[in-house]
């Protein structure tokens, strides 16, 4: 194991008594509890962690948090748990952590694809894929695209199902504070003190933000770390405060709906049983305080991407928070006073700062720190760097003098960019601040306010006071009284953050031999952006898409502003004239798992089951999904396939009797003195004269005259109807009925109640149906005379209430037994036992389909497709001709809907009875084989008829009965005879027995 040469002797928030072992690319290292993977690697002197996306240049750790563009790693926990593209700066170290670098072959030190940088880069400039690979055209599919696809993409997707669980939670609060730095903490404290319900979230393991790396700072007379601990402890004690660390606010959605993901187990060496890996929070906040801080900006100069070149404040934070020296000999390139704070703190830790090269001309800080031994250059130009896998020198010029400094680290202090991502996501308008040279939150679109560095209040004292003000204002807006104005706590800071900053490329970038990177993650250089400008891409949105700057997973957190600066300089327009690209959710990548939550496997969607589901499973039923319902499709006996099972089931229903679960049909009880009038207006049929105790087949149209639904309607009393709908149409029909009652016919005294699930429905169909049921029925004569076809009555069965309908979807004598669902299983069992005397079979939806097709009964959605009128499918008889109106009546009168050459329902028979047509197959006339005149809607082998049968919609079909047409099949078209669409018992004798 390597010793951790770059760990300081003391300080930091790591636990030096708890060493942790980990591996990176198979090599073992040691870190400490409290480290991130990045800080632990740096403590071991490892800067090289990845290869860049396009040029495969060696890259090192640049930042400290979510803005990191280079240090993308894969973390493997076990065989099934591998996560690619994690930021090493965000991966918390645990004992045994196993991380690998990405985008290199065969190794990080030796990457074959680095040829892209050395030899090929002049052939792959910005937008190369728009310019090259155009010819020959055929090479695109076979050569160019496969090659580019292989080269593109980062990391390897896991190939096993995710074994972890993910959970989700809705939450409501008065004030949501995003970011627990100085401003966020004071905002949360003020709002919570006013009694508001507060959620405070922060993406890092420890709350405190910049305070975690503060050195020699006091707040309210205490050391800043003491103030921080006390403040967080006070918040934790308040019952109205929820503190969420390791929780990133990734999306700002309308009406203050914020998405957060909380990482629950990724930082643990041992995953506790039963604990989800992540929790997705969907927070609805009355008021939001965004305290997201600022992102340090890199400088654009030639060779600015070698490992060892990183952000200055990140280096300072590695020192103060993790006790890590990022190098031995440090050069700092500066456009902001914070460089001097970093220099001072690094020097205090014994790190040699060889040079500070300030690209500005004015004296950098009012009160320069003791810099003995450090050269300070002003008006400096950064000419370039050297080093293969780590920076080894930097060449600087000031005035006419050009000097090369040996170093192992170069820090960039380019200034700070307020993090306005969430504000922008909330559709707030950004405003350019010429003083700060930054976009700041302007006009809000949501009930939110920004506080602290994310709105340019960079100094600690300002940020603390700004947070207090924002917290109070948020609480007031949420309806809470706040106390009198109090000033922020007194703050002493030995080295203030200062001011300054640079936007765009530094002067030496133009025409430099080495690349000056703007976007590290997508390998976009200053020259790429200048090329885009030269080629006429003026809009920043076009520049972004052409060069791909800002389009990597980091969404240009480091690069966007510098890209703007370059376009500004190249086109001679100011930054506000150019604008800014839109920020979109998620702020950082989030897992699919957290979005899916519990909606996986069996719980992906509700599996609706009937009271007979468990019985059908015991009988070995094969199920099919009908919307969300699980329906028994067929009941195979040992050795039977679907074809054999369905053939047997069909024969047995026609021969003796079958039992079928019809519970999923929609049922609506329509009650009120105007119930018949309502149905008259709603369905095409006439209902007024339907007698109590009678049923009628109803057809429902849309306004456009096309069939929407059908079902049997029974009249239970003058003012009470039992309406059935299709399984899939149940909710749709109820909604449409309610809609019409509320908006079109509020005068009608009628009400609707869904009874779909009140009743379990047992269909008993076949010549022996009456024999099976009658002994079980109490209080009702079901003889053919007393209870003819299309009757309905309430009675009792097996001692429980029953609603019996005599209906048939098979063409046989049939009953549908409706019993309260809680009694369903018991009644089914009783009927089943009794049915054994008649060799009753259970049958599924497939047999139901075949039996009804033999009778030419349509299925809405199979024979109809939203363009079919009642007459098209032979149901014109159902229309109440004398009615003044019903839904769709006016449309039916339009010429096109009454035309004689509309597609009409017919039957088709193949010459070879063994051949069943393909459903959906197109139909042509032999005289015009190029023109489709219809299609097959249903097709089955009929074991009863010993031949195949099909239903079809054919143009002018009823006039074609007796003709031969052709149907296209996989082996070529075959002739079919057109027949009437009723294949079995056309006189209907079997129903009326």
């Amino acid at each position: 194991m390597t010793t951790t040469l770059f760990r300081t002797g003391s300080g930091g928030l790591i636990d030096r008594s708890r060493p942790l072992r980990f591996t990176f690319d198979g090599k073992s290292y040691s870190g400490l509890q409290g480290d991130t993977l990045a800080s632990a690697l740096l403590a071991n002197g490892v800067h090289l962690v990845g290869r860049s996306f396009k040029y495969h240049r060696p890259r090192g750790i640049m930042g400290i948090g979510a803005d990191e563009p280079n240090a993308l790693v894969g973390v493997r926990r076990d065989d099934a748990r591998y996560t690619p593209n994690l930021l090493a700066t965000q991966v918390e170290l645990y004992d045994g952590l196993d991380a690998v670098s990405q985008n290199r072959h065969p190794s990080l030190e030796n990457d074959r694809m680095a040829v892209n940088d050395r030899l090929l880069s002049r052939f792959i400039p910005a937008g190369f894929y728009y310019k090259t690979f155009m010819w020959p055209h055929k090479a695109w599919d076979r050569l160019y695209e496969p090659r580019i696809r292989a080269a593109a993409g980062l990391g390897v997707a896991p190939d096993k199902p995710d074994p972890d669980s993910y959970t989700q939670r809705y939450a409501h609060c008065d004030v949501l504070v995003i970011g627990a730095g100085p401003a966020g903490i004071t905002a949360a404290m003020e709002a919570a003190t006013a009694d508001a319900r507060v959620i405070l979230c922060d993406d890092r393991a420890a709350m405190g933000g910049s305070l975690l790396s503060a050195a020699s700072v006091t707040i309210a007379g205490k050391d800043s770390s003491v103030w921080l601990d006390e403040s967080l402890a006070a918040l934790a004690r308040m019952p109205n405060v929820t503190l969420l660390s390791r929780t990133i606010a990734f999306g700002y959605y309308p009406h203050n709906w914020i998405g957060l993901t909380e990482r629950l187990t990724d930082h643990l060496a041992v995953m506790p049983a039963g604990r989800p890996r992540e929790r997705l929070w969907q927070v609805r906040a009355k008021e939001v305080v965004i305290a997201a801080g600022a992102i340090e900006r890199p400088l654009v100069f030639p060779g600015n991407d070698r490992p060892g070149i990183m952000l200055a404040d990140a280096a300072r934070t590695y020192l103060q928070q993790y006790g890590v020296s990022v190098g031995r000999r440090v050069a700092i390139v500066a456009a902001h006073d914070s460089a001097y704070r970093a220099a001072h703190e690094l020097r205090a830790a014994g790190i040699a700062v060889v040079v500070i090269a300030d690209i500005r001309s004015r004296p950098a800080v009012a009160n320069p720190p003791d810099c003995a031994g450090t050269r300070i250059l002003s008006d400096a130009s950064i000419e370039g760097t050297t080093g293969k896998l780590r920076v080894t020198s930097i060449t600087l010029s000031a005035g006419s003098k050009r000097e090369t400094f040996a170093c192992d680290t170069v820090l960039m202090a380019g200034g700070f960019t307020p993090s306005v991502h969430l504000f922008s996501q909330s559709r707030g308008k950004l405003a350019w601040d010429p003083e700060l040279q930054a976009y700041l939150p302007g006009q809000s679109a949501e009930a939110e306010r920004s506080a602290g560095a994310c709105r340019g209040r960079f100094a600690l004292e300002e940020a603390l006071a700004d947070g207090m003000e924002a917290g109070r204002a948020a609480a007031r807006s949420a309806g809470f009284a706040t106390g009198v104005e109090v000033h922020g706590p007194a703050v002493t800071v030995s080295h203030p953050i200062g001011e300054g900053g640079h936007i765009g490329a530094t002067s030496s970038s133009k025409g430099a031999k080495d690349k000056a990177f703007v976007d590290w993650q997508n390998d976009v250089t200053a020259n790429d952006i200048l090329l885009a400008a030269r080629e006429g891409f003026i809009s920043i949105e076009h520049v972004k898409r052409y060069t791909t700057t800002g389009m990597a997973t980091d969404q240009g957190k480091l690069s966007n502003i510098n890209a703007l600066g370059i376009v500004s300089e190249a086109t001679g327009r100011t930054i506000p004239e150019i604008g800014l690209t839109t920020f979109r959710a998620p702020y950082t990548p989030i897992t699919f798992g957290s979005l899916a939550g519990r909606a996986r496997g069996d719980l992906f969607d509700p599996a609706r089951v009937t009271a007979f589901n468990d019985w059908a499973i015991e009988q070995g039923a094969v199920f099919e999904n009908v919307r969300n319902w699980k329906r028994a499709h067929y009941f195979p006996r040992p050795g039977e396939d679907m074809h054999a099972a369905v053939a047997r089931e069909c024969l047995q229903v026609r021969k003796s009797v079958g039992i079928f679960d019809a519970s999923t049909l929609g049922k609506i009880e329509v009650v009120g003195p105007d119930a018949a009038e309502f149905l008259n207006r709603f369905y095409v049929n006439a209902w007024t004269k339907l007698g109590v105790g009678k049923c009628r087949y109803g057809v429902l149209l849309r306004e456009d005259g096309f069939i929407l639904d059908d079902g049997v309607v029974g009249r239970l009393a003058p003012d009470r109807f039992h309406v059935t709908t299709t399984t899939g149409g149940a909710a749709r029909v109820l909604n449409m009925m309610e809609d019409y009652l509320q908006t079109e016919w509020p005068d009608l005294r009628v009400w609707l109640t869904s009874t779909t699930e009140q009743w379990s429905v047992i269909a008993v169909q076949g010549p022996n149906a009456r024999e099976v049921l009658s002994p079980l029925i109490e209080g009702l004569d079901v003889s053919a005379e007393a209870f003819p076809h299309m009757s309905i009555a309430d009675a009792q069965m097996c001692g429980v209430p029953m609603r019996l309908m005599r209906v048939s979807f098979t063409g046989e004598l049939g009953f549908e037994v409706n019993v309260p669902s809680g009694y369903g299983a018991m009644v089914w069992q009783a009927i089943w036992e009794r049915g054994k005397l008649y060799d009753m079979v259970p049958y599924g939806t497939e047999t139901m389909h075949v039996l009804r097709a033999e009778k030419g009964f349509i299925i809405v959605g199979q024979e109809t497709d939203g363009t079919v009128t009642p007459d098209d499918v032979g149901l014109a008889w159902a229309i109440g001709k004398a009615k003044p109106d019903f839904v769709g009546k006016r449309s039916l009168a339009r010429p096109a809907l009454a035309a004689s050459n509309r597609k009409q329902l017919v039957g088709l028979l193949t010459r070879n009875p063994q051949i069943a047509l393909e459903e959906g197959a197109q139909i042509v006339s032999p005289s015009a084989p190029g023109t489709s005149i219809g299609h097959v809607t249903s097709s089955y082998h009929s074991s009863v008829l010993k031949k195949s049968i099909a239903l079809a919609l054919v143009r002018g079909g009823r006039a074609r009965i007796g003709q031969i047409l052709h149907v296209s099949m996989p082996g070529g078209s075959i002739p079919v005879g057109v027949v009437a669409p009723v294949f079995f018992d056309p006189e209907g004798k079997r129903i009326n027995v």
Partner: protein
Amino acid sequence: MFDPDVTSPLDDGSPAITPVGPVSRAIIRCRASDIDLVSNRIDIALPRAACRSVQDSGLSALWLGPDEWLILNATPADSWVSELSARLDGALCSLVDVSHRQVALSVHGPRAEDILATGCALDHSIAAFPVGMCTRTMFAKAEIVLWRTGAANFHLEVWRSFARYVEALLREAESER
């Protein structure tokens, strides 16, 4: 000869989630002008306030809409709704037996609000969702009626075919550590 017990699709209870035994249920729908008459006839004052409930002599009336109430009878009987119907004596309304349409779960204890918050987007805090409040809402992808019967007690009604789905999600939430 026959077992007249009402079967339930639900499993046995767990610490925070208990299936509620059989309940008789009815849906009453009527116009605003008839609320007083209907209330008098069936002897329970149908609440007019949105999302509020009334409990009286063993019955509970839950407001589901300006013209719709769910009436629960904790002493179930197959004949109850027809008796209720007889008492209406022609008052202008719709009364429909939905005793078996749905089943009920009790979610209770100190974690009840958190468990419900895994699938229901509403604010379940006692201030926003006080005792006696009821509403038709969604739990994940299933429609439910949620009714707060105590500071740490919720009564959840769900259509029978969705019951196992809702129950499984609640149990997963309960088992989270």
